[in-house]
């Protein structure tokens, strides 16, 4: 299986979806083809003084980046600070920007480094997300309120998944969230995190196993995945 192609398609779709919410299939396909090139072109245009190009670029990447920082830091205030710091560095480095890799790689490398710096400064690798029952209830949709047991079970699944994600070791969570949000290949994720592709893949495998285990406990016996058989 070609990991790179899968991840790039997935990443392009996710980044396109982050702009305007629901996006038509045709737009997703177009985004998959030329998003990376467009990103680099937009950054070059911004380097030459086109603020509109930066606005487009920002709209395209702000969602994935913000979620990545939220998942990594666990606190909104910290995520806000890091988010602004990342974009400040992107803005400051516009004059030196060269198209050597995807803009996504550049952006998430800056974000990864900012997160690592934050962990070093604060002395704690990550913060575990803690949500109370009221917060879980707020996340439950209106239709699910009509069936309180089902809604509560669904909220419990989400909470366990969040907790499992938050309790992942920082390296594994980093690779997992990067894979989900950036849409980059494992090789590029390894480059961002400063490890080999195999190491990144191993970390991802561990992360997926733990998350799968967190979901498994809420699943009825009849819905056991086929991979176990």
């Amino acid at each position, binding site marked *: 299986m070609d990991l790179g192609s899968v991840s790039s398609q997935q990443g392009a779709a996710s980044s396109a979806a982050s702009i305007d919410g629901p996006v038509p299939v045709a737009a997703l396909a177009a985004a998959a083809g030329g998003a990376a090139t467009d990103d680099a072109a937009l950054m070059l245009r911004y380097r030459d003084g086109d603020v509109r190009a930066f606005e487009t670029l920002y709209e395209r990447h702000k969602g994935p980046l913000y979620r990545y920082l939220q998942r990594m830091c666990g606190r909104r205030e910290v995520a806000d600070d890091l*988010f602004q710091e990342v974009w400040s560095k992107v803005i400051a480095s*516009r004059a030196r920007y060269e198209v050597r890799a995807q803009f996504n790689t550049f952006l998430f490398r800056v974000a990864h480094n900012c997160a690592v710096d934050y962990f070093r400064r604060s002395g704690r690798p990550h913060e575990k997300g803690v949500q109370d029952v009221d917060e879980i209830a707020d996340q439950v949709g209106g239709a699910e309120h009509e069936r309180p047991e089902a809604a509560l079970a669904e909220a419990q699944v989400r909470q366990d998944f969040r907790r499992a994600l938050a309790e992942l070791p920082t390296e594994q969570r980093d690779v997992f969230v990067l894979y989900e949000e950036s849409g980059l290949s494992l090789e590029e994720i390894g480059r961002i995190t400063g490890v080999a592709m195999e190491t990144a893949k191993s970390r991802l495998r561990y992360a997926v196993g733990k998350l799968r285990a967190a979901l498994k406990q809420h699943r009825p016996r009849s819905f056991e995945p086929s991979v176990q058989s």
Partner: protein
Amino acid sequence: VSDPTDIKALDEYLKGGSEISQRYRESGGEAVPPELDRRVLEQARAAVAGDKAKGSRAWLRWSAPVAVAASIVLAVAIVLESGVQQDPVLATKQEPPMRDMLPAPDDAPREQEQERDRQVREQPPQARQDANREAKMTAAPAAARETPQSVVPAAPPAIEAVTVDRRVSLMREEVRVNAPAIRPDASQPVSGVTVLSELPAVAATPQLADEPPPTLAGSVSAKSAAKAEKAAEANSYDVSEVAITGTRVQRAPPHTAGPRNTINQSAFSSESADSSAAAPAHEDPQQWLEEIRELRRNRKSAEADRQWVLFREAFPDYQVADDDRARRK
């Protein structure tokens, strides 16, 4: 050792659309606060505006040196193009005394006419007829001279000017050698300095200046000749005057120098009076210096040196810069 179950789960996950991915997306996350959006975009705009301001500041920083450099280049180009000019203050200081010694241009012909009328009135009838004939003959060459002078450009070509200057300088040298033996007619209204200043006018028409007017020599009555000679003896001798009038005086015997010289001088002064307004070449020391510089530029050092000597003799007090190209090295 990798668990085969985990490997299969990873493969399923990497294919996309797995439950883990769905759960991750459902867990969502908060959207970027609008305040944060505003701050980031403002920062981006400010950075671009700073770039533009920095660019204009860089232009301002370089504008002054560029202006100075352009001015220097322009000044050097002008100096190279026009040559080193004398201080105009010095030139104007030198000029007024020269001008003061000159009679008014309109006065010279008038005085000559008056003198001629007086001579004619004093002559007997036969001599008066001769004088009228002489006046007609004098007027004809003068009119002939006026025509080419009006055509002659104000600044003749350098080669022609050099030739004429050399001729004039030879004239001066000849006369200087013979000067003590000559008694020029000092009754002429044109002073020596006047004639000196009008030399270039003669130079502008060299064929006329060198051409001796044979019909004029000796055509004046004996009375006027004796009178002129007497007046010449009474006046003091002026080297500079002789330096100009001597070429023609030299050809005549010493005793007849007076009348011949008188006639020549009158013709000369009428000519020079006419031509002084047309082409005053060496009346202006600055122009003379420029001609010497031109000679040096054309690598005619010998001629330039000779001209420099003549210039110094003609304008001994005229101040010339030590580094002037016209100076003899």
